[in-house]
């Protein structure tokens, strides 16, 4: 892999950029691999990269039914944060944040991790109680998160409306300064390039149609639209499509796949300095390095694999945006799109071995998987290589739905009274 740098660009500028290498190859699949990863999104590619880099496993294929990074990796609003309540969540997401910081250098690919700060708005007494519970827990877990008064929130994000007359006034905010965003495509491409450089095969347009198991039940490989590919171990990292793939191995999953929409505005000069989230009024907004306001909406209420959703979901989100940031009412929606998110009953991921020997699964990230990409790939690689979980993902089992030991962040923020 030839190193990217300003010097490389200068060199190439002199020869009309004709000397750039392919960032990754499109090889023919081998008959068999040590590990096959199903799904060439950020999490799958990161898994392959860390398997190669940290575990010396390089005979790997990453298969995708479409193009690498073409699923949720390239469709999300790229919010990165780790101020989760539970120890298990904080450990997992903060592991990711630590990897984000330095990922560009590690991959030699500028993923534009921008620690712009993620501010979560509190709109009522209940929000304040919940956020403060998070802040205290985060501090004792070594995760930064701080409480801001409405005036401090406004100072951090000037377009914010903090008028007490607002329908849902801002009563404060929790700010994680290390939170922020990254460039989603660059994450997929950076991992793909770095993995390919270590010998990983990335095989695009290759859909898995079956999982072959031996007489004793262990995984032998995958049937694909490009023929059978043998594998000692198979890691499924297929986001919204996990259920149909796991079904090929006879496993029924605690998952439902929902449409999730997002939109961007036309690009404008810098006006929005951070990421703001409001769970109470359902709005998630930041400004991309291209100048677009990037706005996340909620999920539709029905399961779907269609990658589209209803207009009323977007209106609901834009109402909240215009209420909190009334200066944006005349901005225009330039593009909207949908992804398919796989949601578990406790809204926490599954990162684990399965009852099928040699089959591993990484799924259930719901609406917030992007932020975990490096950490998820890192611990999932460990799980596959060692056939046992890393201590950070030990709690993210499939068994928890039998025992009741859930990791339910949303339930902890329960709204009632």
């Amino acid at each position, binding site marked *: 892999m030839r190193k*990217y*740098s*300003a010097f*490389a*660009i200068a060199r190439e*500028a002199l020869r009309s*950029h004709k000397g*750039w*290498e392919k960032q*990754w*190859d*499109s090889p023919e699949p081998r008959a068999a691999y040590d590990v096959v990863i199903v799904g060439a999104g950020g999490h799958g590619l990161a898994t392959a990269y860390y398997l190669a880099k940290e575990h010396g496993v390089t005979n790997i294929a990453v298969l995708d039914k479409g*193009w*690498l990074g*073409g699923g949720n990796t390239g469709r999300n609003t790229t919010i990165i944060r780790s101020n989760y309540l539970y*120890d298990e969540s904080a450990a997992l997401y903060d592991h990711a944040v630590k990897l984000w910081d330095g990922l560009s*250098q590690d991959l030699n690919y*500028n993923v*534009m*991790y*921008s*620690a712009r700060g993620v501010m979560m708005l509190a*709109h*009522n007494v*209940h929000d304040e*109680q919940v*956020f403060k*519970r998070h802040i*205290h827990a985060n501090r*004792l877990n070594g995760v930064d998160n701080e409480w801001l008064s409405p005036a401090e929130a406004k100072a951090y994000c000037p377009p914010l409306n903090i008028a007490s007359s607002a*329908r849902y006034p801002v009563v404060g905010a929790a700010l994680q300064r290390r939170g922020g965003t990254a460039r989603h495509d660059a994450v997929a491409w950076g991992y793909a390039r770095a993995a390919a450089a270590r010998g990983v095969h990335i095989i*695009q347009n290759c859909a898995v149609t079956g999982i072959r198991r031996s007489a004793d039940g262990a995984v032998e490989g995958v049937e694909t639209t490009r023929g059978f590919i043998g594998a000692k171990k198979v890691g499924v990292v297929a986001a919204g499509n996990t259920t149909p793939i796991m079904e090929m191995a006879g496993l029924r999953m605690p998952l439902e796949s929902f449409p999730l929409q997002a939109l961007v505005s*036309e*690009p404008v000069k*810098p006006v929005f300095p951070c990421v703001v989230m409001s769970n109470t009024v359902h709005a998630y907004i930041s*400004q991309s*390095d291209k*100048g677009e306001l990037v706005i996340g909406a909620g999920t539709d209420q029905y399961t779907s694999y269609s990658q*589209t959703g*209803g*207009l009323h979901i977007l*209106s609901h989100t834009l109402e909240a945006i215009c*209420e909190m940031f*009334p*200066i*944006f*009412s*005349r*901005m*225009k929606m330039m*593009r*909207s799109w949908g992804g398919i998110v796989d949601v578990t009953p406790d809204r926490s991921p599954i990162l684990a071995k399965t009852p099928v020997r040699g089959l591993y699964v990484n799924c259930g990230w719901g609406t917030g998987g992007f932020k975990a990409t490096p950490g998820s790939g890192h611990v999932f690689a460990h799980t596959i290589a060692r056939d046992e979980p890393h201590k950070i993902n030990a709690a993210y089992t499939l068994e*928890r739905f039998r*025992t*009741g*030991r859930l990791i*339910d962040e949303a339930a902890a923020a*329960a709204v*009632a*009274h």
Partner: protein
Amino acid sequence: MSQSFRIPGKGRLSPSRGLRFFFDGKAFDALEGDTVASALLANGVHLAGRSYKYHRPRGILTAGSEEPNALIGVSNTAATHVPNVRATVQEVHDGLVTRSQNRWPSLAFDLGAVNSLGAPFFSAGFYYKTFMWPKAAWKALYEPVIRQAAGLGVSPKEPDPDHYASRYEHCDVLVVGGGAVGLAAALAAANAGASVILCDEQAQCGGAMRHESGARISGRSGWDWAQDAVAQLKAMDNVRVLTRTTAFGYHTQNFVALAERVTDHLADGKDLPRERLWQVRAKRVILATGAIERQLVFGGNDLPGVMFANAARTYLNHYGVAAGRKVAVFTACDSAYGAAFDLARAGSAVAVIVDWRHDVPEDLSRQAQELGIKILAGHRVVQAKGRLRIASISVAHRDGGQERSFPVDSLIISGGWTPSVHLYSQSRGKVAWDADTQRFLPGDPVQDCVTVGACDGTDDLARGVAQGIEAGKAAATAAGHAGGDQPDVAVEACESYAGGLAGDAGQIKGKAFVDYQNDVTAKDIRQAVREGMHSIEHVKRFTTNGMASDQGKLSNMHGLAIAADSLGWPIPDVGLTTFRQPYTPVTFGTIVNHGRGDLFDVTRRTTIDGWAQDNGAVFEDVGNWKRARFFPQGGEDMHAAVNRECRTVREAAGLFDASTLGKIEVVGPDAGAFMDLMYTNPMSKLGVGKLRYGIMCREDGFVYDDGVVGRVAEDRFHVTTTTGGAPRVLHHMEDYLQTEFPHLKVWLTSVTEQWAVVAVQGPKAREIVAPFVSGVDLSTEAFPHMSMAECEVCGVPARLFRVSFTGETGFEINVPAAYGRSVWEILQARGAEFGACTYGTETMHVLRAEKGYIIVGQDTDGTVTPFDAGYGWAVAKKKKDFVGIRGLKRPDLVADGRKQLVGLTTSDPAMVLEEGAQIVADPNQPVPMTMIGHVTSSYWSENCGRSIALALVAGGRDRMGQTLHVPMPDRTIAVTVTEPVFFDPKGERLHG
């Protein structure tokens, strides 16, 4: 400035209707009906903006919504500013203020243009390869600079003063596109009696008839016929014609969203909505969305003065404006010839027609010859040259050879036409590659829609109109309307749209733009392919081709063709990017419409709330409700007010508005059996006239809600829920009743708003209430704690509960809601005589915490069982079934060490813990610490004379008396684990 490029006698605008507007501070004359683009061109101004990356001067390319270059800021005030407006769409009104964007200090002299010098470095995706060292410089330096350079216009700076309207509509037929084909379809459907909505994004219907001078329909020019057709349609009751209206989103089941621009073209639209959102559900959709002309890709194809052929003709034939005095044409398509001919006839010199194709149709050559215009077939424009405006072109044979230069002030280009399949594609229809004509055409429809005319690949107007009529008739028939006369539309003459070229026009010299707005060149696309980007999605994202505000209307086909050429693949193998809504950018405010301010969300207020407002209450949001939090007197802060209220309730009494509590009436012979299933408690055993506190679990065993349940009659329960939980609790109960226990004869009715609830609590409560109650003996013996009765209070029918959430003697008086305020006022006045106060939710919280009563959602969250909360007594031991019975037995829910609700006291009684603070056993451990619980509720208790707190602590009930620690940022607070009851632990006051 005079309109020196306005050609007398040309165009359809009235020369007597003059207007004045401003561009970059300078006043310009215009005519009513002009767009900013046509008016600037009339004044000889082509330079309209600067490009995003290289700050290259950019002109006006098109005459429609596909314009990528001429984006301006429209601004009368800081609040009404709109960035990135297409000058080709914005109509001029008197006094309109517009500004160019992305330039400093001025449009003609832009310092940002130095970026052009760095162009060799700014190759596709260069930013992914650098700015990584030193690491800290990314945040401090590189990123801010990149961000400052990005973006085009500037955001508005003040809240939007305008309002927006909304309309849901249902119709038999929605016709999108008011060109000749769409009009024919609408006429056919409407004549048959179908209800029809026709929308068009332009100010007037007519589509291509705006520019085409060669079309004749039913004895008139195409344009005149179109205006007659519109007039006919508008006169019909079953038709709605919406102009300035863009169909921007095609959703499931023929749900199409339209954005109508109502006032942006008016000088004074103050009382009108700025835009209107139409959400149309149509039985059938007819897409007559036409086609979009695309550029040719050659060096300097972005210079001001370069203009699309249809645009040059539109400016001439519709607006009466000549694009230039000395023009050349570069085309790969028949339709551009009309531009040359029309301009020549209007007096412009046409230097040459350069046709990429080797063969030019005979009638076009003949007409050119008649007008004295030279055609160079099989040639190409190698490069356009000039600084702020095109000055010359160099032309050579396609295969190379000598270049010839032609001085021009305008170059008219056409790379052919791309069918506008956006909406069809949004409807989830798959497009198919048509190898003959080298374009993507609609395949089989997936929804009940049909594509007609140019968007369906039908270039011939006569055939398109016939398609439109057929589609209109068929749509009407399908909707059950078969009558009416068929419209008589005879297309007598039309023009040819044959030809076209996708991809670059030969070897490129200089910069050849594929995506103008994002400054993506043909070279960038070839580089992306070299770097391994083999899917069009990757090429698009790596180069940003097609990702600007025109969303690839001009660039997608070229990008695809160039990528395919680089790969040596057929075009369809590279794929096609998905078309997403919106077709053109849509104002947030339009999508939001009424949903702002008071109408953003419902604000629910009780019937007593007005009194609280009149008496200075401070409110808090709970769900959709506003609840009085405390009633400050004489400048009290919250703590002072709450301390006074707390003390007063325990010493005398207090009145509390409990109306927001959810209430459900459960009625039917199986009501008891149903209540047994829904609550952990044995509710069927509750006697008539009695109350019981109940806990409701989800199937997984976690506490879902709680409340007091009263038995009004053998077959009638009055159930209360938490305020925020009311809607979901009813839904949850309906779910079980309808789908799991449908055999039970019982029905549920929400009565939350039927009853206003006045709680009177405290030692004087009975004395305050008693005189107004008729029909009940209120003595403790006759009406003990947890009794209820139907009676009259203040002369109105009431449900009287003897119940307490404060630990005092208490009554909750339910009266029909409209009497609530009056009853409240009567009792408040009476209470005042006994020293009673009114109190809000904050005091309610403190008083109940003194008693250890939980608040679901604060002291419990969705991970707490009734046993964890210390309410195991409320879980019936003998019942065979209730919702949650099995979930509660799961291994983790019965394991040791679960978090349990306990009390905490601080060693310093004045120290009030922070709610949400975490609890540890060992305060000296390093981070990350092992947390064993958290503070759920914490208050200063005026009645206990100390702080009190409730907490969930691992194994809490085995830790009574233990010292634990609460680490805060600045100190660690030692706490003692106690029982969660701090006041009147024996509960004697309840029964007073």
